């Protein structure tokens, strides 16, 4: 059994895990007030956001050079990293030069992608994750299962057991006590840290503002308390100006958590006296993706997580099944193009192509169309069994002729009624699915 398959089976067999995903993603989707209650404004903003992202990404070099010049003008030093190891090494050198052994980290999916923590740890530097979700999974020795809610797969009971085992906190599922415990535990780390590492949600080209979005205050603390701040920023994160930023900002929190607006939105635009700021521009496969015209639109992504929150496949198999930093529909596309590990080409098949991701995407990335396109590209005609190709031809002819379809479905109904018993298990369907017994009357008979 392939790695992917075994992960999927493991997730499908764990009903509690599915409950955790189900509850968390549905609550985020349901709370998106602007999408459900102001559909016209929602659509206007999405269209604007699409134009902004498309234009920025199409002219990426222009905006990156602008952003770099603005950062340098603000006394912020800039570095460029072609690969994960470049980025990690630059970061390590900056810390080592100052003899720093402990750093606090604001939540950053880019640093998860780079495996920065592991890189630093191997070289004797401890990186402490400070976002509650990241803190939980770091202590559990796991990886994030969602890009905005990294511990979404864990129930309160899981976290209670973890805190009991790790810290001797008497077992409690009370989220207030657990949160307060993490606050107290990390307090001294914040107050004494010599460096903070962050990502960035946006980087404004016109004035070099590093924009950070959060709710907990851990990002503000990570980048305000210590005298050194290192921001690792994917080259696609640039936005032209404040007006375009305002549009994206209005879409981000509703899409991510269902909040109207993030708890904290910080713009860091200048280094203060005795505070050093470094920006590392990270490519790590992005420029190659940019050159791939079929999939360049993936660089429009603002990492809100709406596509996974709305995805029925993600809700069932969970974030870890996708095997890399980015799960859900966006991950099923990014992973084969960026990580390119054996087996990654199967990821675009982890979709029902229902289109819920595309509908939810605040920057209108046509996710399910791209998933389909990637499937096409990964299947050359030679690899398809001939019987399959024949069956597909028959299927396509049938679907294209309503009368013929109607005729065939009547015949099929007659045959299906002959099968005895309820919920028949058919070969080809896995053990989690059963073929239901057909209704007495077809839909066509009823209307």
């Amino acid at each position: 059994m392939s790695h992917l398959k075994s992960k999927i089976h493991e997730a499908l067999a764990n009903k509690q895990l599915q409950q955790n995903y189900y509850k968390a993603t549905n609550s985020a989707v349901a709370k998106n007030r602007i999408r459900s209650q102001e559909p016209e404004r929602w659509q206007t903003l999405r269209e604007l956001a699409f134009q902004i992202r498309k234009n920025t990404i199409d002219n990426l070099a222009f905006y990156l050079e602008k952003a770099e010049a603005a950062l340098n003008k603000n006394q912020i030093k800039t570095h460029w990293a072609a690969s994960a190891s470049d980025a990690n090494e630059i970061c390590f050198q900056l810390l080592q030069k100052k003899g720093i052994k402990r750093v606090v980290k604001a939540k950053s999916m880019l640093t998860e992608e780079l495996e920065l923590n592991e890189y630093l740890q191997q070289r004797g530097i401890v990186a402490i994750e400070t976002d509650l979700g990241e803190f939980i999974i770091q202590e559990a020795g796991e990886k994030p299962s969602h890009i905005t809610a990294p511990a979404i797969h864990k129930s309160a009971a899981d976290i209670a057991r973890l805190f009991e085992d790790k810290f001797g906190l008497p077992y409690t599922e009370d989220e207030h006590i657990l949160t307060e415990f993490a606050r107290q535990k990390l307090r001294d780390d914040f107050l004494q840290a010599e460096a903070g590492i962050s990502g960035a949600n946006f980087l404004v080209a016109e004035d070099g503002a590093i924009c950070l979005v959060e709710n907990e205050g851990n990002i503000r603390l990570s980048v305000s308390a210590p005298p050194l701040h290192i921001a690792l920023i994917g080259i696609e994160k640039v936005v032209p100006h404040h007006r375009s930023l305002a549009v994206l900002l209005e879409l981000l929190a509703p899409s991510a958590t269902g909040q109207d607006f993030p708890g904290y939105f910080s713009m860091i635009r200048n280094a203060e006296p005795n505070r050093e700021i470094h920006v590392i521009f990270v490519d790590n496969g992005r420029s190659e993706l940019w050159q791939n015209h079929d999939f360049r639109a993936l660089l429009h992504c603002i990492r809100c997580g709406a596509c996974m929150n709305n995805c029925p496949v993600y809700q069932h198999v969970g974030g870890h099944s996708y095997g890399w930093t980015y799960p859900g529909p966006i991950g099923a596309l990014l992973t084969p193009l960026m990580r390119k590990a054996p087996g990654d080409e199967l990821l675009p098949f982890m979709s029902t192509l229902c289109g819920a991701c595309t509908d939810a995407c605040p920057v209108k990335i046509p996710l399910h169309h791209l998933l389909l396109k990637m499937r096409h590209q990964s299947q050359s005609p030679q690899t398809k069994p001939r019987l399959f190709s024949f069956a597909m031809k028959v299927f396509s002819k049938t679907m294209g002729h309503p009368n013929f379809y109607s005729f065939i479905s009547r015949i099929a109904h007659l045959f299906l009624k002959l099968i005895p018993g309820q919920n028949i298990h058919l070969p080809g369907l896995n053990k989690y699915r059963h073929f239901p017994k057909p209704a007495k009357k077809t839909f066509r008979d009823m209307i």
Partner: protein
Amino acid sequence: MKNSTRDAILQKLKVKSADKVTFSMPDPMRAIPREELIARFTDAAEKLNATILKCHLPDISEILKDYQPLGKRVLSPELQRLYPTISGTFFSPDFSPKELSAFSFGINAPQYGLAQTGSIVEFYHFPKERLISLIPETHIAILNAESILADHHQLFPLIPNGINLTLISGASRTADIEKRIVIGAHGPKKLIIILVFP
């Protein structure tokens, strides 16, 4: 080495000429009467569990009496000019984060409020000033009731050059455990906004 990496990345991304981003924003809520802005701001901020107090300028130190002792208050430097009757310890950039954590109340005067989201907008003119609304357990923001804007679309063009800023919407919070909201994550556990009328 460094420059060659930079140039190689940019070279891969080059197009002949850059298109300028042009678009028209949906009309931000422009002509809204002040009373309405204040009502919306209050409503939105209270929904985020912020406490809203209202007072007239001369009564400001009176309303702060509930937040004693004076030694536990750290004040942002511009309060001296804006609200000279408020007493406490004035913040100095020499304070270490550790020293700041000895204060229970961080008091400052944000530049703007945003009606739509109930946010307060802090512009930081002094180094480390942002720690005032971050480290003490209670953040008290004194906001001129006349400086409430409709939304962040109105705000962004007004941001002056060369400063850092934060938009704060409610006290710090998390929902990382089963999406259940907990107020008071790593930032302040309580946010009090005092709306000051002339």
